[in-house]
């Protein structure tokens, strides 16, 4: 599903690399936590998976594609098989909940009939059935994140990338979001989630990958958060 072979990433005009010689493999259906302090390279790791950045050295394979050789115009095709969720939700404030989810389908050219069928289904799945016509501003943070997850999941992606999805939520709401991600993972979707939330990591007992100053320092199945912020 995801394979990193001695991947390093140095941003232009910077001396210290953001990632140094990272090698790992994530298989189909896995749930992986990515932990590490700020600046440890978590975001760079995720950006490489999303092909928002290219590796400076080594090779990144995602969904069987070698990202070093993938031409720019093929990138959108790959991204359609990836779902992404962020800490700040990234919803469009002037569109309703339903429109926000539909937007993801519209821009990849899905038919109107298909959209009308899929959107309520996926909103039901994330527990927002009937809130289709609400505006994001009227919803709680947890509900907004559910909309974002619905949008990420509406294409039934093989891989879901979540960058601190619970970072803006209280512990109780976070638990709800984690249950949802776990359910999505059980449908066969691989989930990679960067987080600072020790409680969640410790509770879920999934594979944990820890980065420190760009190096892979721990890769543990059924691991715990394991370090103090």
């Amino acid at each position: 599903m995801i394979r990193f072979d001695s991947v390093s990433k140095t941003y232009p005009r910077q001396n210290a690399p953001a990632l140094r010689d990272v090698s790992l493999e994530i298989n189909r259906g896995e749930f992986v936590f990515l932990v590490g302090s700020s600046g440890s390279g978590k975001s760079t790791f995720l950006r490489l998976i999303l092909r928002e950045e290219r590796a400076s050295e080594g090779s990144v394979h995602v969904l069987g594609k070698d990202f070093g050789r993938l031409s720019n115009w093929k990138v959108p095709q790959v991204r359609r098989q990836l779902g992404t969720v962020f800490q700040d939700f990234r919803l469009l404030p002037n569109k309703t909940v339903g429109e926000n989810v539909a937007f993801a389908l519209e821009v990849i050219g899905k038919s109107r009939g298909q959209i009308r069928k899929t959107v309520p289904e996926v909103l039901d799945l994330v527990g927002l059935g009937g809130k289709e016509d609400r505006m994001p501003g009227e919803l709680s943070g947890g509900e907004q994140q559910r909309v974002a997850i619905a949008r990420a999941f509406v294409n039934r992606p093989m891989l879901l990338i979540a960058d601190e999805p619970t970072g803006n939520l209280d512990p109780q709401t976070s638990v709800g979001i984690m249950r949802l991600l776990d359910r999505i993972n059980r449908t066969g979707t691989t989930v990679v989630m960067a987080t600072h939330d020790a409680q969640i990591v410790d509770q879920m007992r999934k594979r944990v990958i820890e980065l420190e100053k760009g190096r892979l320092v721990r890769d543990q199945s059924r691991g715990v958060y394991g370090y103090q912020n």
Partner: protein
Amino acid sequence: MRAHFVLSEIGVGLRRNVTMTLAVIVSVALSLSLLGGSLLAREQVSSMKDFWYDKVQVSVFLCNKVDAETDPVACPKGAVTEEQKTEIEEELNAYEIVDEVFHESAEEAYQHYQEQQKDSPLAAVVTPDQMQESFRVKLHDPEKYEVISTAYAGREGVHSVQDQRALLENLFQLLNGVNIAALGLMTLMLLVALLLIVNTVRVSAFSRRRETGIMRLVGASSFYIQMPFILEAAIAGLIGALLACGLLVGGKFFLIDGFLEDRIQVIDFVGWDAVISVLPFILVVGALMPSVAALFALRKYLKV
């Protein structure tokens, strides 16, 4: 690709950016009407050239009695004689480059002068004696003027040889100069319009970076992401081009047909066919140019 979606995006973009869009429309309209105007002016000059060059003649002015006193250098021996006249006429007719030769007597010259200058106070004072007799030579090729000029200038009985083309040349040079100035101005305005478009598109892309960011994440193609911006610029450009067309048609209708045509009858002004043939060109340039500028502006901005 869903047209409905793209159209609604364009609508949002244009409304969000009303002032910039207006600036683009106005600058495109002005530069394109200058472009159309100078194209038409070029057409005008070349049709005038055809029209006038067809009529220009080389005039060989002959000495009269008055010249013998006022201009002893050109006419040292006094007025031209009958023999000299017949000799010149026969010679002129013998030239291969000469198409036709007309003789204009002093009396005829006087009549023409009176007609042309009937409002001038000079006309009342001039007498037929002062007018010069002349041969009006029409050449097959007006460029060959030199041949006649060298053969007859300084010859006995000939006062001077005048090429009417030289008079027109000055006029055409002036018109050409004006035309070049208009083209230069147009280029500058077009450049301003292009910069404005680039800037407008950038602002537009920036104000919608949230949307475009999400579009990229969910895998919209860059064509799909850029389309609304490009069409936005194209639509603004097209509106500008339509205004330019309106200005040109208005200019033809009010300025040429309604004003100049009545007052200046010697010039055959450009017709509606010429004006109409320029319009599609203006529209195409008006739509294409901003699209290309937008594409250029977005190339750096919206990378995958």
